[in-house]
């Protein structure tokens, strides 16, 4: 019986070692066109100029896409943006977006892609922000058509837990007003917001001014012996709670490497809330993981709203509000203000 056992064992071992095979995790390559067009609108913008990137898919040796060496940019296409007026779409007079080969070279700063080529950017004239719903239609050089649609964010209005009449300060009655400065706004469902609060200041050295800015975290937390800052994330909070202690700590920290505190001049605090439209929110969430009510998404799915191809046609709008720092509060650190 021991012989049988040995024989079976030996046979299995041989079978196991002899089963090597060629394997490729690829299927037949399928060419696809990718549109990337994200419209950004500033707080004061009354119009925007869309920039569009058009590329096609490619294949590489192996599985690492970093090995791709051929620029996949596509030139020679024609794009048209129409806006929704009532229930129909109309062409804005300057909405044709085309690739201008001279553009990258005509500007001071030329964007180069990872193939060391200037980006091929399709651009057009300015479109007024008042048009909310936009439709994109692209005709490729081979006649194939791509289309998409997006709706611009409407902007937000901020409200505060405490309106500082003389500028923002931590020196308030926190028993009465709480230990954080709360900023709230009304959120749209299915939209993502990104928030930041930045302190702007400069260091004066004679006639030289070195302008600086630092982001104020929501709070600082202790992680063992290390103090770590917690910043807002891409999400849909509708509310930010900035601990007064965090503002105090930031103001203290800006002079850590400065010998003359009086050389620091506080300019202001600026809140930027960036609102991604529904399409861009969906695209962002598909790239950055979990967002569902209670599902686990297939990780290979990336959101696309391009009919006939892949990619994203979306927009974001940044709402900015500037506040002053209370002069007494600023000077209590040994700093000056420019107001």
């Amino acid at each position, binding site marked *: *019986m021991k012989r049988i*056992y040995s024989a*079976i*064992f030996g046979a299995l071992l041989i079978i*196991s070692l002899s089963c090597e095979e060629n394997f490729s*995790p*690829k*299927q037949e*390559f399928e060419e*696809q066109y990718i549109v*990337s067009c*994200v419209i*950004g609108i500033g707080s004061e913008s009354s119009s925007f100029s869309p920039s569009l990137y058009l*590329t096609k*898919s*490619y*294949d590489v040796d*192996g*599985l*690492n*896409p970093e090995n*791709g060496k051929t620029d*996949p940019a596509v030139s020679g296409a024609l794009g048209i943006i129409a806006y929704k007026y009532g229930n129909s779409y109309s062409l804005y007079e300057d909405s044709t977006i085309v690739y201008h080969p001279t553009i990258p070279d005509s500007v001071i700063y030329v*964007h180069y*892609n*990872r193939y060391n080529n200037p980006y091929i950017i399709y651009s057009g004239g300015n479109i007024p922000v008042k048009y909310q719903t936009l439709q994109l239609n692209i005709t490729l050089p081979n006649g194939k058509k791509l289309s998409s649609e997006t709706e611009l964010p409407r902007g937000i209005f901020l409200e505060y837990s405490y309106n500082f009449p003389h500028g923002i300060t931590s020196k308030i009655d926190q028993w009465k007003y709480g230990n954080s400065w709360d900023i709230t706004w009304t*959120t749209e*469902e*299915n939209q*993502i917001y*990104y928030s930041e609060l930045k302190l702007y200041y400069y260091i004066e050295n004679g006639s030289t001014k070195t302008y600086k800015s630092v982001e104020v975290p929501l709070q600082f937390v202790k*992680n063992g012996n290390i103090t*770590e800052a917690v910043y807002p994330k*891409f999400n*849909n*909070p*509708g509310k930010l709670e900035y601990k007064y202690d965090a503002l105090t700590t930031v103001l203290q920290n800006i002079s850590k490497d400065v010998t003359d505190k009086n050389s620091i001049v506080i300019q202001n605090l600026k809140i*930027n809330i960036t609102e991604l439209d*529904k399409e*861009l*929110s*969906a*695209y962002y*969430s*598909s*790239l950055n*993981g*979990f*967002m*569902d*009510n*209670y*599902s*686990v*998404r*297939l990780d*290979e799915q*990336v959101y696309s709203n391009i009919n006939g191809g892949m990619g994203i046609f979306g927009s*974001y709008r*940044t709402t900015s509000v500037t506040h002053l720092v209370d002069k007494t509060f600023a000077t209590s650190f040994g700093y000056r203000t420019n107001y």
Partner: protein
Amino acid sequence: MFIKTNVFIFIISFLFIQNSEIFCQQTGSLRGFLTDSTNGEAIIYANVVIKDVDRGSSTDKNGYFFIPAIPPGKRTVIISYLGYTTKTVSAVIIDGKITELDLKLSPSSIKLNELQVVADKMVRQNETDLGLQKITAKEIEYTPANVESDVFKIIQASPGVSSTGDVTSRYYVRGGGGDQNEVLLNGVTLYNPFHALGIFSSIDPEMISGLEFYKGGFEPKYGNRLSSILNVITKDGNKNEFAATGQASMLAGKLMLEGPIPDGSFIVTARKSYYTDILKNFLNDKSAPFDFYDLSFKVNYSNPYFDKGSKFIVHGFYSNDFINNNNPLKENYLTENLILGGIWRRVWSSPLFSVFNVSYSGYKAKVDANLSEAKPRENTLDDISMNFDFTYVYQSKDELQFGVQNKFLSSSLKQENLLNKTTTFDQTGWDLSIYFNYKFYRWEKVGLDLGFRSKLSGLSKNRPFLIEPRFSFTYLPSSLIAFKFAGGWYSQEVVTLTNENELISIYEPWIIVPNYLNSPQAIHLITGIKTYFTENLTLEVETYYKSVSNLFDVNSRKYDARFFDYKNLDGESYGADAQLKLNSSPLYFTASYSLSWSFKIDEGYKFSPRYDRRHTVNILLAYDLGADWETSATWNFASGMPFTPVAGFYDRLYNENDPPYYFNDNFIPSTIWGNKNSKRLPVYHRMDLSLSKKLQIHLADITLGVSVINIYNRQNIFYFDKKTGEQINMLPVMPSAFVKVKI
């Protein structure tokens, strides 16, 4: 309805009790419990035969046997079980009466028999047991440990069962999804039977007496799952003397205490991980600080002066898995299970056997996000069950099984999505099911089960009023071969929100099927042939077809709250599996082969789920080398799993968290995925070896063991990194060891 239905069942059972005599004509019956003489543990699946008359039976999972229709007179009873010394006793059978005979068997002193476990040739060959596999604790021991001995590894090696790799104990039965398998611990649903993200089972093999594994076509007593039922029966504890067993592996330490109490026994087990570094071989995240432990207990009481024929059991189980990062900027994870149950088993004066089971099973999974990017999630499920199960045996040898099962279930899900919106999904329900199953055993060559299960009240909203017919048929043209056929309708109203394309899941909430979806249903059709070449050599071949509707699956096109998270889709599976078993001391050998096709249909696109394996071969060899040395080897071979191939690459726009430079000209080369699961990975195969030696030093029985996983270091592909294309393999060659001390 609760009171009415339950009272109705009691009235029926009462009528059976009161009218027992009308069934008794010119014959008597013999019944009793069979236990191990050394520790009082029930001996399951043993043979009890009445000599000279063609009557016999096998003990059930409680060690209980009942032999009806025995001609009156003094009869010789032969009790045999492999590994035990055959015993012959006399019993007087009285016309129209039931003779009680509790029996004890002594373990055989012949070492050669130790490897033999289950008598394959059952006394009752017309048993309607198609799809049922009975597994003893000894068979679990044969399987070389994946660092830790695991009950689910032997399930994965069963014919018709597949897995998705080395790093998971999850199993898929005949094309069904992972949550379509129910694990019952002493009859109570265990919702998460895994430790450490599914790498190991949370059920300590040390506490197991036996397993009943229904791979399909299960009888009306079982419901609530579409694919399989794994009934884990735990030990009662040593009724004769106190004993302590300690065991240490490279992952966890465990302790078992057992002993007698007045008119009963107890058993307590505990296991705790202490060196989770070894888990780094299993996981992609090498830094995850895993920890887990589990506890169980069981107390039995049986006093004929208190209530003759009754046995009272109180049992409990608790398992806890957690990842505690001890960092406010990182998330923590927690999963826990709690089971508390009471069982009243009674043999009545008539040929009625009843089991009353009341239990609580709680499950909790939580992601504590702290200040990390993770989103907080919490799921709790509370299941209070109360079941009354009856078995009545007629003098014609027919059996009637009937009962009422109540399940009060509450599931709660609370999650915060990326939009910081907190979603709560709370649902409660009462599942009131009744079942009847009539087993025709009156004919020698035919066995036939006809029955149904009916839901009078369901948990979910969109479920049909279901009467689930079930049948099982066995035909024996000769003593060497049996033809079998079984089928039925099945439904499931509690599902887990698991994406089976996720390679490792850290959070698996269980919920009642949401109101916007229909409850999953399935139809099983199974045929089989069992041949008895010799007493020790059997071959079983089964074919199956399973049609599934309203499957619960992830909505892969959900990108925000506008879409539902899950959707219904349909599926089907079919195939054949075979198992050859040789049980000839000192060799124990099983070889199984499965051929299967499994599909899901999603909006017209038909694809194979990840666990679909076309061919699977599992071979187990266990050999008693003598002088208390034992060795075993397993070899597993399986066709490659389906996977989604690469269709090309593109430069994808991505964002930088530095406003205002969002999405401007930041491009990252990325993969375009092809049709879902349209290609297959290379074949999987692996060989594991184990060797153990038993020693006796003073009062201690010591077992030393070593095992080697993937001994020829086969590089089985787990997946390809989606960013770099790097091939990630399953477990490499990996030795492990354990020591077990019993006092």
